[in-house]
């Protein structure tokens, strides 16, 4: 118990001090890691806990990004407020998709296709809306102003990303401990059995979808004001949706540390392959991601984190 607290404090201190000693490259790496872990955590609520795999989360991400940018550019609204509007809109859209999907009894593969189709439709539409920049994309002017979600240097972004991750993980932690959480995993394990035991599966799936979509949208705003460029073929692509979901799945969906571990793992592997295999590196790291996904599905179906935890527990039990 004491050991846990010490480790926790040490990790906490490291997290707080790291950005001040890290190089710009590492700062960016960490920010990206937290940011993807955050998105993965958001996805986790619907995909890991409720068990409804979504391949269309890029849609919610983009709704968040574009909404806050448009409100900021055209109405001068601070992205801090705009991001809430984006989250609300994303939640509403999720209810629309969810209503169609869940009321019509779409599960598993069919639900995945629905989420995919909706994201693709949004992408095609976005490419044709001038207000969203069309094919050229949307460039966002950078004026450092913390109240407008724009910071000088990477360190503030680091802490914002870390806070977002903390927020999402906190939400998941609360869900895990509540009746909502128990019901979600029951739905994941066996929806009909859950229904027979009094769980309003439709209502809880919808709720999980709303939470997941809203959180994902907030991440979109962060991205918009970190990268300052939005293009539908990047942010609304299937590849992006896959990017969002691969980290929690590899790390361990349905757990709090899964998306975080998955993100660190993938980011480190990516950086490693980019640094040491410079030639033909464009794409090598994704090949590695793909191989990792294959390995996880075949041999570590619960994800890296739960499997490691299981090994550690069994090892400890044997030495006890």
């Amino acid at each position, binding site marked *: 118990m004491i050991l846990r607290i010490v480790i926790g404090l040490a990790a906490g201190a490291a997290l707080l001090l790291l950005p001040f000693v890290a190089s710009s490259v590492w700062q960016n790496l960490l920010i990206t890691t937290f940011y993807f872990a955050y998105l993965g955590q958001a996805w986790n609520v619907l995909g890991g806990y409720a068990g409804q795999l979504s391949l269309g989360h890029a849609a919610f991400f983009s709704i968040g990004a574009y909404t806050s940018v448009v409100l900021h550019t055209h109405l001068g609204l601070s992205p801090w407020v705009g991001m809430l509007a984006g989250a609300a809109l994303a939640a509403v859209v999720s209810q629309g998709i969810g209503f*169609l999907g869940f009321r019509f009894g779409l599960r598993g593969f069919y639900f995945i296709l629905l989420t995919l189709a909706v994201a*693709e439709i949004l992408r095609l539409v976005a490419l044709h809306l001038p207000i969203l920049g069309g094919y050229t994309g949307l460039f966002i002017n950078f004026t450092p102003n913390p109240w407008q979600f724009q910071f000088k240097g990477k360190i503030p972004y680091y802490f914002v990303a870390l806070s977002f991750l903390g927020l999402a993980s906190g939400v998941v932690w609360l869900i895990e401990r509540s009746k909502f959480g128990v019901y979600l995993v029951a739905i994941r394990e066996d929806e009909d059995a859950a229904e027979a035991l009094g769980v309003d599966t439709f209502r809880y799936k919808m709720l999980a979808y709303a939470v997941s979509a809203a959180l994902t949208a907030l991440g979109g705003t962060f991205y918009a004001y970190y990268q300052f460029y939005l293009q539908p073929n990047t942010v609304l692509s299937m590849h992006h949706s896959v990017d969002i979901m691969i980290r929690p799945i590899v790390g361990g969906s349905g757990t709090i540390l899964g998306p975080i571990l998955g993100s660190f793992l993938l980011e480190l592997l990516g950086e490693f392959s980019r640094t040491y295999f410079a030639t033909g590196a464009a794409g090598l790291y994704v090949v590695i991601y793909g191989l990792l996904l294959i390995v996880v599905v075949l041999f570590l179906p619960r994800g890296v984190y739960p499997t490691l935890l299981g090994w550690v527990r069994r090892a400890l039990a044997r030495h006890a």
Partner: protein
Amino acid sequence: MSLYIQAVVNGILIGGVYSLMAVGLSLIFGVMRVINFAHGDMMVWGMYLSLWLFVTLGVDPYLSVLFTGAAVFLLGAAIQRGLVNRILTAPHEMQILLMMGVGLVLENLSLMTWGPDPRRVNVSYGLTTFWFGPIVADLPRLVTFALAVVLALCLYLFLTRTDLGRMIRAAADNQTGALLVGTDIRKVFTLAFGVGAACVGAAGSLMTPLLPFTPSSGLLFTVTSFNIVIIGGMGNLLGAFVGGLLVGVSESLGAVILVPSLKEIVGFVLLVLILLFRPQGLMGGRR
């Protein structure tokens, strides 16, 4: 008016390749109940292979069709043997994730080898066109369509007239029954997956003279294939064929009625409608 007829004709011509693509996917699902999320990426490998043959050896993609088909057959068989076989009874989500991983690997190996720029095979006769009254069709499109239909027909004959084909159909209809009569089910699965992959590999060859492609075209082809297969009915090969033509035409009409760059939206809207109201597809079939 003739604009619409032209659109329909264009749609049918490209629909042929779509059909071939989708038939391959439907076969794989029909026999193994596996959702091949790497389907489009296998097609892209076929496309790059035929591009390579064209660029290095000057082989016309229409001539390399059989070679490409065979090569992707081997690829598919290897993937099935090594990976898919292990998850035959796993829930669909796992299969999708596995094949997604395979797709990522295939796509990015292509990316590493060829780079992200769009490629296209420019055949010398690419600009030869034929006029049928007010309707125009270029030679590549016509050849692609013709070959696609021929290949689909060959597949049909293979499945109905040969012993191997009958084994595959039996396994698709009734796995246990097939096992009982001594079918080596693993071989049948490998064969079926290979044949399905060959279809999409050949389709790739046929597609190269028509459109530019990049490594990331794979995902779109995969989703289009699923689109078609769902519309036509999962596991229903005729449905997949007809669905391909249907999607081709609706895309083409969409390009005319809306904006050309929005043409894919028709397909997706159609998919959503079918998912909601008739998930078993227009031609029935199993879920």
